[in-house]
């Protein structure tokens, strides 16, 4: 027995080690939801392989009354259900932590550790004595361990039962058998183990009106609310569930009440080229269209992205980033496609990127993408990642401003043409770099034009004249300038005391950063924060950097991609931007950020020589 078992209420990390395809995911999710129902925030994460059955998979739940939703690092309790990963799983438990395992078969003492509390429950034995059907054994074993766990952690069995009741509403048999399995495990633990253990869950009131949702589902809902009518996509992890969620949302929300017909069209393309081609075709013809993909898909779409930029066709790409390069780590998270998206395609190109921090912002920005695409007549990227996209995250509820109509951008109508308005497809009439467009089929004799990826003059006539080409390229730059004030602004939060140091971060780093700030402050490090929410960068990014001696740029990629873009776009001396990089494929943690920045800060505080001498 350990000398100092960890003792903590509503603040610990529990990890379930499972075999994928074993049906553990729903039991584990039930565990996370039960804690939420008890009023304590949780932050769960799936750690899964690119595989359907048989490989190791983990589900980690951070129980955090303080509401820290980033990954913490470390494991306080391991539910070790996978013999394949046993040794590594045991080694990963924090000293003083807990191990919950299936004790049906005796294990040699060498397989355990001295400094952890071992909780053996004969799960297989209990399961096999109750169930005969192999599939039932498999599924109910998961519920049985959940029951035992509820006893260990002093959880409210009623909260779990209520959730099971909601899940199997109307399926009485399944409901009662699940509840039965839950109590099998719970009762065994209550009568055979010393429970509860040092880790406990106690009712609180810290969840509020927040919702619990996956980023991919939220972004898909944003596309529905944002008026997307055409979706073309090609399956790729971790973005497939976004297209599938869009399909499901549309089935519920987008059928005509009378005719039952669909106010949307979803096509699973034969590849990413076709998907983006369909999106560009639909955008050209005045529909709001998007595709959803990940890094390799963006690489394939690159030629069309250039066409969208140069021919000025509204289009939206949701990029759920995963670790690259090449096939990389398909089921691991990174923020590694910033440069490949921001400057995608040959020639001089630049594209608008939005960086949501969580599902709530994913919803809002997904909807906003379509306004921006039609207003700016160009490609817009929503830069999600696996950590946001494929995990349930607690976030503020979705909100929609009823008074807002879609911004369809500058579209010249038949009436405007009949009024004698001069129509030049690439004519900058307002000085903002954004020309008018017409939809195909608008007017019998006016407003038609030939869209092409080759150079053209202001009236869309083919030309290879240098001045006309440059004129157009300069206008595109003006348009990009205009975009700076249209995209979501960076959000700044200043330290309590005045400081020479700042930190820039974005996207899914957000919760870990919020937590790290507290850790750094506890060590006396004061940092002003700027969360960048879009590219092109608003002018406040340059002024934030100008106002600080050093600015840390925290990212989840190897090459400090955002930092490169900031340096590149603002002519900033790179020495003033200190990269803090986490790119092993796991979500960045507060511990990592606090240590990396803390170490750098400590190095800066060199004791002056004369002090040492005196």
């Amino acid at each position, binding site marked *: 027995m350990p000398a100092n078992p960890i003792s903590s209420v509503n603040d610990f990390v529990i990890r379930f080690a499972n075999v994928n395809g074993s049906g553990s995911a729903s039991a584990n999710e039930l565990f996370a939801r039960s804690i939420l129902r008890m009023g304590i925030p949780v932050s769960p994460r799936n750690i899964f392989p690119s595989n359907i059955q048989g490989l190791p998979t983990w589900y980690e739940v951070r129980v955090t009354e303080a509401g820290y939703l980033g990954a913490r690092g470390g494991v306080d309790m391991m539910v070790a259900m996978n013999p394949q990963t046993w040794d590594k799983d045991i080694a990963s438990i924090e000293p003083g932590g807990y191990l919950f395992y299936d004790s049906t078969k005796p294990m040699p003492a060498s397989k355990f550790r001295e400094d952890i509390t071992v909780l053996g429950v004969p799960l297989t034995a209990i399961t096999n004595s109750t169930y005969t059907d192999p599939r039932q054994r498999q599924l109910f074993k998961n519920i049985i361990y959940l029951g035992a766990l509820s006893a260990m952690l002093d959880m409210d069995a009623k909260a779990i039962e209520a959730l099971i009741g909601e899940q199997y509403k109307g399926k009485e048999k399944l409901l009662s058998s699940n509840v039965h399995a839950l109590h099998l495990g719970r009762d065994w633990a209550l009568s055979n183990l010393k429970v509860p253990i040092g880790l406990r869950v106690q009712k609180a009131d810290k969840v509020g*009106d927040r919702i619990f949702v996956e980023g991919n589902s939220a972004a898909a809902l944003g596309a529905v609310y944002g*008026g997307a009518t055409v979706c073309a996509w090609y399956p790729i992890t971790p973005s497939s569930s976004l297209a599938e969620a869009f399909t499901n949302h549309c089935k519920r929300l987008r059928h005509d009440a009378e005719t039952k*017909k669909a106010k949307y*069209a979803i096509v699973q393309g034969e590849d990413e080229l076709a998907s983006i081609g369909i999106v560009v075709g639909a955008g050209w013809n005045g529909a709001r269209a998007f595709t959803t993909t990940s890094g390799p898909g963006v690489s394939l779409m690159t030629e069309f992205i250039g066409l969208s930029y140069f021919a000025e066709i509204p289009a939206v790409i949701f990029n759920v980033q995963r670790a690259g390069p090449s096939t990389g780590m398909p089921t691991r998270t990174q923020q590694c496609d910033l440069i490949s998206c921001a400057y995608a395609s040959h020639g001089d190109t630049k594209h608008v990127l939005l960086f949501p921090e969580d599902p709530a912002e994913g919803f809002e920005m997904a909807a906003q993408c379509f306004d921006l695409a039609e207003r700016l007549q160009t490609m817009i990227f929503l830069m999600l990642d696996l950590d946001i996209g494929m995990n349930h995250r607690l976030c503020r509820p979705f909100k929609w401003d009823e008074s807002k109509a879609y911004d369809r951008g500058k579209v010249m109508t038949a009436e405007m043409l009949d009024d004698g308005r001069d129509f030049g497809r690439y004519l900058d009439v307002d000085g903002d770099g954004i020309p008018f467009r017409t939809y195909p089929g608008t007017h019998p004799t006016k407003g*038609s034009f030939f869209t092409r990826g080759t150079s053209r003059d202001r009236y869309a006539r083919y030309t290879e004249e240098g001045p006309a080409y440059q004129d157009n390229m300069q206008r595109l730059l003006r348009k990009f300038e205009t975009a700076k004030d249209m995209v979501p602004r960076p959000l700044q939060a200043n330290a309590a005391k005045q400081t020479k140091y700042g930190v820039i971060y974005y996207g899914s780093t957000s919760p870990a950063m919020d937590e790290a700030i507290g850790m750094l402050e506890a060590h006396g490090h004061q940092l002003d924060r700027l969360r960048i929410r879009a590219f092109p960068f608003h002018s406040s990014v340059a002024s934030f950097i100008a106002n600080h001696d050093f600015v840390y740029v925290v990212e989840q990629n190897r090459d400090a991609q955002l930092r490169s873009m900031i340096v590149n776009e603002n002519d900033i001396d790179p020495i003033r931007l200190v990269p803090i990089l986490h790119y092993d494929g796991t979500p960045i943690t507060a511990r990592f950020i606090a240590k990396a920045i803390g170490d750098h800060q400590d190095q800066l505080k060199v004791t002056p020589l004369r002090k040492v001498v005196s």
Partner: protein
Amino acid sequence: MTYIAKPKFHHPGLPKNELGFTHRDYEGKVSTLCAGCGHDSITGAIIEACFQLSIEPHRVAKISGIGCSSKTPDYFLGNSHGFNTVHGRMPSVLTGANLANRDLIYLGVSGDGDSASIGFGQFAHSIRRGVNMTYIVENNGVYGLTKGQFSATADRGSKSKRGVVNSDSSIDLAAIALQLGASFVARSFSGDKTQLVPLIEAAIRHRGAAFIDVISPCVAFNNHTGSTKSFDYVREHNEAVNRLDVITSRAPIQIEYKPGSVQMVEQHDGTTLALRKLDADYDVHDRLAAQGFLAKHTAKGQVVTGLLYVDPEAEDLHAHLNTVNTPLNSLGTEQLCPGSAALDKINASLR
């Protein structure tokens, strides 16, 4: 003579169609292709077909890929929107455009390099999906704009202008279209306008994926002895299975047909296709037989032309997707946004 602007005035006595339009209303810019190019004849046939059908020019969307053929949409229907996309990707762009607005007529123009080489996949999948379109391949077996390389439709054993013999098997796009489930498949020859014009008319009137492979000799790089896509070769080996007249309800046909020599095909929109049979046994409704017929005659070195297959009851992608009748691009906030009450319910379900 492309630097000479097209004169705008025309003879007052030019024939007009039902909408009061003349041929000139269906023309576009002056062609920049080589004099004598087969593609210009196809452009002429498209203009004639649209004139005959009394289509409002601006209700057509012309979409193409890259290459000589893909430049041609600039040369017809000057009042239509056109989109010269990227190489081999016309089908996907057309599919997207069609999804956005089901009320326009979609004319996809492509070449053999564009559709059989770089864009073979997109060609196949747009046909599979049954996109409502007229897909014309201007097939010359050669890359013209890059000066004479073989394309994937060049026949094995045919000789390039530089004397190189093609050792690769060729792709027969019409045969593939049949296999993929195209509901209208035809082949024609740019040098046979009387055959081509009604085929284009029928394809435009067809609901579903209508594919026409038009052999269109390249006068600059593939019209020599040893080529199987030259004017002379195609004329000598042309095996037409039928001749087509398109009868619209507005213009009842006056021709008298000999009993048994004609197959009448009713299309869903009320037009009738009158097929004068040249091969008595050929049935345009038998997909399998058409495939066999093509294979047999291609093996003999013949170029089978005419309407090869039609399914008058075909359904298109919109029917498969059960989309609303209103074009998706005209739906606004009110029709598309579920609103905040629905959102409150969703929020509640996520707690």
